[in-house]
């Protein structure tokens, strides 16, 4: 019986995936960002150069800046590339190559690597009831953020998040060692996932190793050996060749500045705005306030302080703030390490990293929206929260696709997502008795309702979109070109801040 159920479940999930694959295939000719060329270049670097030169090559401006395992992943893919078209992996003549061959090849690698996401979702949901399972599938596999970033913009987030979900699912099963091992692997694929490392550390220490002196020590050593082995496997060769400093400097380009060209909707948006506001007021009051030499709206940000009044922010400050923000959750994890809460804590940690981190990309919001989807089906409150945060974070990714061709696609994806969430959550919290009588009663009452404030906020989102997409270009044209993006960042930052506070309260209570 159980076997049958599982089979059924696998089939179901596979079906979801297959349907999303058809859409992914259709998205092949859509707009692709420079990330596409970045990854093509990495294919070429790892294919044609020895390992010792990977992190030194500067043939293209898109140098390798992910950890070594990702480079190995690209190398693995590059074995297949020449079968399709040898020019793809040519370091020089392949630059900015944009034939169909390379587009199909790279897009299909993303589609295929999404299988890890499939596996992660499968492991996480195999013991849940049908409705929850379906909902999680729909929320993760059809997440507009993932589709937009991976299959239009071009990245491999589905693959990496899939690995993370597999790791979370092992923790949830109580198999801490495997979970820890997988997380170490994820870290060596993309170091941005490190934000959740403190959570993993505290949780594993407490839940896995805190079991009496002898067993505990043995487990601690085992875990340590496993994690160190992963890191040695990834970074060892570079340490051996004495290149580790170069690798680290590539991975952490702190010269890039506090905010990305398009501000991720996080805490620093308020900080910048407060600074501008203060400077403006003080000038009005007659104080002599210097105009900062670096600007936030001009794109790239240099080393000089971009703040006129408020203190300069350094990477160390942001690091301390992230850690501070995560602390409550660490304490909670230490006091009561429950496998069922790990997904929630990890999502919270990524939210903190997103809000207070250094040079955060808007795409990093995926790191918490995807794990939150797992949490969303756990309670009514979670569902309400997820409904809001997932819409906001997906919307904040809209500016990534700025060309008109993809406009209907991103809008429809988001609408569909919202609709599916609404239908799914309403169904989940529908009174069963009412449902049985549904033949007669017209409308079935559901406990899933969106509050007034949330509704107002979401309507505001629509207004923001109308202003930034239509009214601004119509009335102001090219003047204040930074305004629409600023408006979107600021408005979405409010939603993400709210989500952070909500998650924090949820974890503490």
């Amino acid at each position, binding site marked *: 019986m159980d076997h049958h159920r599982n089979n059924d479940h696998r089939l179901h999930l596979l079906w979801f995936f*297959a349907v999303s694959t058809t859409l992914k295939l259709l*998205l092949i000719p859509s707009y692709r960002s420079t990330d596409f060329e970045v990854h093509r270049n990495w294919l070429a670097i790892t294919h044609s150069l020895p390992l010792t030169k990977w992190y030194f090559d500067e043939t293209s401006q898109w140098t390798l800046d992910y950890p070594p395992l990702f480079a190995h992943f690209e190398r693995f893919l590059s074995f297949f590339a020449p079968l399709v078209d040898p020019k793809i992996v040519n370091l020089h003549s392949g630059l900015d190559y944009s034939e169909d061959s390379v587009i199909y090849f790279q897009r299909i690698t993303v589609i295929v690597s999404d299988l890890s996401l499939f596996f992660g979702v499968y492991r996480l949901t195999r013991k849940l009831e049908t409705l929850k399972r379906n909902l999680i599938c729909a929320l993760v596999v059809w997440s507009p953020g993932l589709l937009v970033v991976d299959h239009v913009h071009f990245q491999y987030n589905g693959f990496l998040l899939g690995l993370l979900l597999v790791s979370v699912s092992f923790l949830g099963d109580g198999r801490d060692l495997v979970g820890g091992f997988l997380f170490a692997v994820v870290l060596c694929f993309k170091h941005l996932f490190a934000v959740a490392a403190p959570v993993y550390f505290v949780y594993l220490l407490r839940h896995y190793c805190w079991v009496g002196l002898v067993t505990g020590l043995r487990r601690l050593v085992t875990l340590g050996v496993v994690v160190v082995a992963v890191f040695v496997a990834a970074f060892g060769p570079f340490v051996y060749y004495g290149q580790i400093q170069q690798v680290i400097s590539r991975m952490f380009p702190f010269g890039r500045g506090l905010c990305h060209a398009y501000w991720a909707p996080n805490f620093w948006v308020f900080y910048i705005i407060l600074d501008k506001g203060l400077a403006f007021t003080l000038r009005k009051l007659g104080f002599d306030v210097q105009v900062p030499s670096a600007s936030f709206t001009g794109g790239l940000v240099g080393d000089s302080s971009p703040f006129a009044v408020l203190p300069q922010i350094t990477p160390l400050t942001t690091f301390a703030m992230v850690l501070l923000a995560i602390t409550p959750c660490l304490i909670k994890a230490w006091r009561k390490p429950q496998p069922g809460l790990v997904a929630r804590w990890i999502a919270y940690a990524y939210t903190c990293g997103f809000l207070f981190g250094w040079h955060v990309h808007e795409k990093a919001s995926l790191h918490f929206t995807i794990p939150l989807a797992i949490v969303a089906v756990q309670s009514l409150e979670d569902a309400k929260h997820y409904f809001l945060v997932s819409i906001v974070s997906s919307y904040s990714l809209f500016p990534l696709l700025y060309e008109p061709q993809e406009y*209907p696609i991103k809008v429809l994806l988001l609408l569909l997502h919202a*609709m599916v969430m609404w239908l799914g959550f309403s*169904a989940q919290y529908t009174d069963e008795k009412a449902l049985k009588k549904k033949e007669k009663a017209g409308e079935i009452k559901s406990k899933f309702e969106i509050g007034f404030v949330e509704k107002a906020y979401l309507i505001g989102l629509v207004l923001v979109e109308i202003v930034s997409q239509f009214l601004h270009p119509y009335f102001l044209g090219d003047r204040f070109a930074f305004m629409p993006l600023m408006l979107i960042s600021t408005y979405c930052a409010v939603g993400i801040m709210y989500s952070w506070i909500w998650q924090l309260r949820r974890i503490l209570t």
Partner: protein
Amino acid sequence: MPKKKPVNLPGDGTAALLPVPPMDNWWWLSHKGTTTSFLCISLFALLIRSAVSMFPYSGAGTPPKFGDFEAQRHWMEITTNLPAIDWYRNGTHNDLTYWGLDYPPLTAYQSYIHGILLRVFNPESVSLFSSRGHESYHGKLLMRWTVLSSDALIFFPAALFFVLVYHRNRAKSGVAWHIAMILLNPCLILIDHGHFQYNCISLGLTVGAIAAVLCGSEVLTCVFFSLALSHKQMSAYFAPAFFSHLLGKCLRRKNPILSVLKLGIAVIVTFVIVWWPYLHSVDDFLMVLSRLAPFERGIYEDYVANFWCTTSILIKWKKLFTTPSLKSISLAATVLASLPSMVQQILSPSDEGFLYCLLNSSMAFYMFSFQVHEKSILMPFLAATLLALKIPDHFNHLTYYALFSMFPLLCRDKLLLPYLSLHLLFTLIYHSPGTQITLPKTKASSFSFTSFPGYRFLLRTHFFISLFLHVVYLTIQPPQKYPFLFEALIMILCFSYFVMFAIFTNYTQWTFSSHFRSADKEKKRI
């Protein structure tokens, strides 16, 4: 997100049999009612459409004639720049040999409205003469959006109307699945949003007319169907069905002549309004008419899986007969082929039978009428879509072969990837887990067609040959002596399936009605 799945709720028959709580796989998508699930599925359908629209259109980058995209764009150029009376007339500003307007006036008005929109946002794409062969990122996008919006504004509401009416007295179980079948119809998406045409408008109006028949509003039917006819003359494929069904119903009234008169007036008034600019002189009217019926192009073109084209391999129709005599022969053949189902509807008009009649008459036209395009399979296919819940298996096969019959065309348009993806998507949704579309049991007992031993075998052979042909068409260069060898093979294969299908549906229409009548009698007795 997405939904997707419309798919059926508690599998059709099973829900009634098993007292299982409604914890089926898909009930959560449809528990809010038909309209809500329709909205959800239509969002998904629109998403798929906008994704397909990123692919190339017919004739992209192939001067001097380009393709259907250029034809539509050219009509926008003509209609926005010239007065209505000159739209169909050859003149210094309107060269009819270059994609001259050859659809009825409603298409021209639609081009005019879309042309105005294009002129606002991208004037150079519709400027007289200088815009010929215009191709640009924004031009393509705006054109694509006009199709998307036509679909969303006409086809979708019509489909909703149909679904609401059709399912009002039925078990709710198959609704979502049926909606998905109608909205994610791969043929329509590929032709409209890939190849580039506005079939969604005329088909949408037709669906509206069909829904109006089902809800008993005959005047509305006449208005909608007249509009559909004035948009694309190919809508006439359905005319016998409408005509015979409405006639059959009127004959059963107390005052048959009055009822017929009422409908006749509705038709005439609609036509007069739509055709008004061309009704001021007989010459104008004939000029438009002659544009609509391009008899000089011969009885068939290319490789269409219909009777004339397929048999022409053996019988050279074009050499044996003159065009005028071919005209009468094809007319006679068409009428003969659609006659049985017409007679059935006149004798005993019923909703179900009407849908079958639509299918049969459009299939008859596809098979036997003059100058059929491969795209015309959309008409019989639309009718089959509406019947999808009744004949799910046959519908599945028809979709496969209808798509296959357009395969060479879509390959020429470089739409191979959307062809494969949509095919896959259709198959997935058709077989969505938790959906057991069961064949109506009544049929199996009364009929032997599908249980005929050779039938299964034939179907399987067809299927394997078609798979083989797909591969061959894509990989092997045809012999120089017969450059269209594979097209011809595909055509023969599809034709032979279509013939089987047509025999089945004609048969079903007659047996069904007898079954229906006896069931009806029983009910009355009770």
